[in-house]
């Protein structure tokens, strides 16, 4: 695809949890828990009205779902602040500090005074109905191989509650994650190549990891803003896999192009979305469709809307394996229905051709008209079809602005409308925090080493190859490496470096529990190498054993890894020479290679190669001379 011609523009939004002792506005620990909740709290949220009676679009839709929320809370892991039963405590200055370090590393301008805002979010993920957030810095940049990318904003905010599931239409959230400090970093929408998005994400990740941030699954989340000239801005939430980013971009661009083509086709056909919602339950009284049968037996209804001139287009693929119908279904599902039927896929799912024709006749359809069918309780079905109509109407105009969710296969699905800008107001419970310029100077003079600088430094200091050093930094092992080098004198740096850079990766692939091997165990292992107790090449074996809980001493004993004394080695070589007399007679000094190979095989690394080589050489010379 010619992205440049299409006018592709992308921006990245990275959310990274900080590794602080307490939450942003509560004294609770920043840790998730798998314990059974000690209390469940049932709540409802209502969008607050704005001055003009205008309610935020995204917020309004959530409220239409009339969802109640259940919050799982704990006696000590969470407290009344998370439950929205106590006002927030003052801003966690430790978190502000980390955010200032990150801002400085991103060459940003820090605000003079930090104000906490309330960003209205009424999907239940925040007990208060808003997320607390504040702007820390603006106007920075990050350097990538494809050029400089501007960083617009860095905000310090609360993480949301963790969605655990849904029960009887009520979303269940756990309060453990709510309030963990995170930074939100937003680039400007100037990225034009999919590979560069990946670069920026990678670069940001590297910078973040050099500061006090949380590690591991779910502690960093990336959102992608993407648009093409004729299309619309779409925000893709939760892009986990950096390698998937180019695919995701490609699929989204495809989707927008296809939606634009559909729009043109609809225009040509003079297509129309009719406002009427038909109750067609009568037609389906004897239906063989299981879904329809179930809905009717539960006092539900079958409702339909007419999409004039849409025939054939609802089934048109717009992303690999996803159709316009999938988009319509995405909107309907937000109203709590499990799905929709559309004309392009019927007759099927137990719905007969007669029934299809009856519905078309019922709604007085003409040639080329399509319908969407929903089977559920009346209110839900009606709301779902209103949403379908709304989405179908935007199909006539092109690509709607949306927030979409990243799927594992590189596709995306509809999540909610893009939030409108007007949902921010000041958090009156938190005093403002002045950030003195002298303090920023202090932060500037104590910045952590960035990955690139670190790589260069360890390469030079320890005489490592680029590949090993890059690996160490990338895998965040440079710290462990340097600690080992500090603690263990007389070790060849390449030994721990290659173990950390490669051995661990291999062991993890094999399924070993490398979490059990901490730096102290490694120091013990390398001490044995340093004092010549074991050969360097036996370290992977000991590390593998350590994954199962074996101590280095136990492992050495188990595999007999201890180096042999010179006398023992000599004895073995004597035996070898004795049993290979023919070879020596035939080849003379040239037998050294074969003998060396046999000796090393026999010694299984328990002796230094140099020593073995020396001994064989000495003995051979003597033997040949004797002869």
């Amino acid at each position, binding site marked *: 695809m010619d992205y440049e011609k299409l006018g592709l523009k992308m921006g990245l939004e990275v959310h990274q949890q900080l590794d602080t002792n307490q939450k942003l506005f509560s004294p609770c620990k920043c840790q998730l828990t798998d314990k059974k909740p000690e*209390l469940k*709290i*049932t*709540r*409802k*949220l*209502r*969008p*607050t*009205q*704005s*001055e003009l*009676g*205008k309610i935020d679009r995204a*917020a309004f839709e959530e409220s239409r779902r009339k969802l*109640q929320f259940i919050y799982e809370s704990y006696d000590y892991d969470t407290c*009344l602040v998370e*439950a*929205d*039963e*106590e*006002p927030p405590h003052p801003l966690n200055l430790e978190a502000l500090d980390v955010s200032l370090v990150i801002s400085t590393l991103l060459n940003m*301008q820090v*605000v*003079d*005074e*930090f*104000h906490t*805002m*309330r*960003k*209205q979010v*009424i999907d239940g993920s925040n*007990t*208060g*109905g*808003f997320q607390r*957030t*504040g*702007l820390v810095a*603006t*106007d920075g940049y990050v350097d990538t191989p494809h050029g400089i990318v501007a960083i617009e*904003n860095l*905000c310090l905010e609360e993480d949301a509650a963790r969605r655990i599931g849904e029960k009887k239409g009520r979303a269940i959230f756990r309060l453990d994650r709510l309030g963990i400090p995170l930074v939100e970093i937003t680039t400007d929408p100037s990225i034009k190549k999919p590979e560069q998005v990946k670069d920026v994400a990678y670069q940001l990740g590297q910078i973040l990891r050099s500061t006090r941030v949380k590690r591991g699954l779910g502690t960093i989340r990336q959102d992608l803003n993407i648009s093409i000239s004729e299309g619309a801005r779409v925000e893709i939430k939760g892009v986990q896999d950096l390698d998937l980013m180019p695919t995701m971009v490609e699929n989204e661009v495809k989707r927008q192009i296809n939606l634009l083509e559909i729009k043109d086709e609809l225009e040509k056909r003079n297509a129309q979305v009719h406002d009427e919602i038909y109750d067609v339950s009568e037609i389906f009284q004897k239906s063989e469709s299981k879904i329809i049968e179930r809905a009717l037996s539960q006092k539900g209804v079958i409702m339909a809307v007419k999409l004039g001139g849409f025939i054939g287009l609802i089934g048109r693929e717009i992303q690999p394996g996803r159709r316009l119908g999938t988009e319509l279904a995405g909107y309907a599902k937000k109203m709590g229905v499990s799905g929709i039927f559309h004309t392009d896929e019927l007759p099927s799912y137990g719905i007969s051709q007669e029934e299809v024709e009856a519905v078309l006749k019922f709604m007085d359809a003409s040639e080329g008209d399509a319908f969407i069918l929903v089977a559920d309780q009346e209110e839900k079905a009606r709301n779902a079809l209103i949403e379908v109509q709304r989405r179908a109407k935007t199909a006539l105009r092109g690509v709607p602005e949306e927030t979409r969710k990243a799927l594992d296969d590189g596709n995306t699905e509809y999540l909610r409308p893009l939030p409108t*800008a*007007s*949902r*921010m*107001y*000041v958090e*009156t419970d938190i*005093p*403002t925090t*002045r950030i003195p310029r002298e303090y920023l100077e202090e932060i500037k003079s104590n910045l952590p080493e960035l990955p690139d600088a670190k790589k260069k430094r360890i390469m030079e200091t320890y005489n490592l190859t680029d590949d090993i050093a890059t690996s160490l930094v990338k895998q965040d092992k440079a710290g462990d490496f340097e600690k080992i080098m500090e603690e263990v004198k007389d070790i060849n740096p390449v030994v721990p470096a290659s173990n950390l850079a490669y051995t661990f990766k291999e062991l993890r692939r094999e399924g070993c529990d490398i979490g059990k091997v901490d730096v102290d165990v490694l120091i013990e292992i390398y001490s044995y190498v340093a004092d010549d107790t074991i050969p360097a090449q036996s370290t992977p074996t000991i590390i593998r054993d350590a994954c199962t809980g074996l101590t280095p001493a136990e492992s050495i004993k188990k595999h007999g890894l201890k180096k042999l004394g010179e006398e023992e080695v000599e004895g073995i070589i004597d035996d070898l020479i004795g049993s290979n007399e023919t070879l020596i007679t035939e080849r003379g000094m040239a037998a050294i290679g074969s003998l060396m190979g046999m000796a090393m095989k026999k010694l299984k690394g328990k002796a230094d190669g140099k020593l073995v080589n020396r001994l064989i050489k000495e003995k051979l010379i003597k033997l040949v001379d004797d002869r």
Partner: protein
Amino acid sequence: MTYKGICKEFLESCGLSIGDRVSIIKKDIKYKGMILNRAEATDDKHLVLKLDNGYNIGVDITDAQVELLETGEKPKIELPPLDVERDPGKMDISIISTGGTVASIIDYKTGAVHPAFTADDLLRANPELVEQANIQGKAVLNILSENMTPDYWVKTARSIAQEINQGADGVVLAHGTDTMHYTSAALSFIMDTPIPVIVTGAQRSSDRPSSDAFLNLTSSVTAAKSDIAEVLVCMHATMDDTYTHLHLGTKVRKMHTSRRDTFRSVNTEPLARILDGELEILDETFSYNQRSEGEVELQDSLEEKVAFIKSYPGIGADAINYYIDRGFKGMVIEGTGLGHCPEELLPTLARARDEEIPVVMSSQCLYGRINMNVYSTGRKLLEAGVIPAQDMLPETAYVKLVWVLGQTQNLDEVTGMMQTNLKGEIRNISSQKYFLI
């Protein structure tokens, strides 16, 4: 304008005012946004700017230059009238506000929160109310409830009486929560209401989506439509947004600084529960007054010079003498345990009796009944003429004394009235159920 010092001078010298869109240029950065008011008065160097992305920041203006982009318009909060027609099939409920906000409207442009007082505002924020009743709205005061005074109780009572006498079927009083239980007790004594008078409020302000105001308000309207002609407090019963409790105005107290379910009935059970618009009586032992026709008369003369004193280890006689010397007409002591205070205070309390100043003894235990016969100090206090408050809450005893002294200052009559149950404030039986509920 709330700016002062450097900021004020800066704005004045640049001819700028709040609401103006400006561009502020500093050494390394340029901000564009709208000038907002500053809530905190402690700082005079930082201008509050609302950026285009919605965020507020404080900009140190000591080294800044400013450029006016657009003069701000004064925010207009003129909303079209709602024109809700009165439905003769529905009851007429008046919602009276004393301040704080049961409903509010946010101006996202500036981030300002406007309290909603009028019926229209209330209905705009809570459209469901239209289905419940014909709503009338009125603001009688605009104060924080910690600033409440006995004078304001009277003002509020008169305003409620006016609604009743003009035909309201029920009254909901929106009140700050801090002193809500004082007001509910005061209204209980001041009026024999023929219709429900429901006092309610919010622990989470109504400008946030999680506010408890909505459930409290709609439940209060349900209660106001019931046949319980009493002054009641209606607030969240639990931390859930599922149901509220109705508490008798004289036997309720704020028991938590911040939780939604802060209001608890003390030495009795909650009178009723309101769940999904249905009222269910919980305390069958209390025979409340039934709704009746007719006007209400107020007995609203109060004696404001009543002291409310907590006893504590080390309290000296001075603490009591101070009030006697200043001509206070009565005092309520929040004593320890069964109703005690240090023996050292006895001569001073005897002095109060000699000067015809009633002294009422309540307990800081809150739960349980005063009994001054068990220990010698108690008996000596009784001898000194101290009046036991029985199982009344200290706050209720205080409010009651303010009211009783407004009716009579005869010590014997005061003693008699203080020990007689007038508005459900005294129960004869201490049930084993009445603790920590």
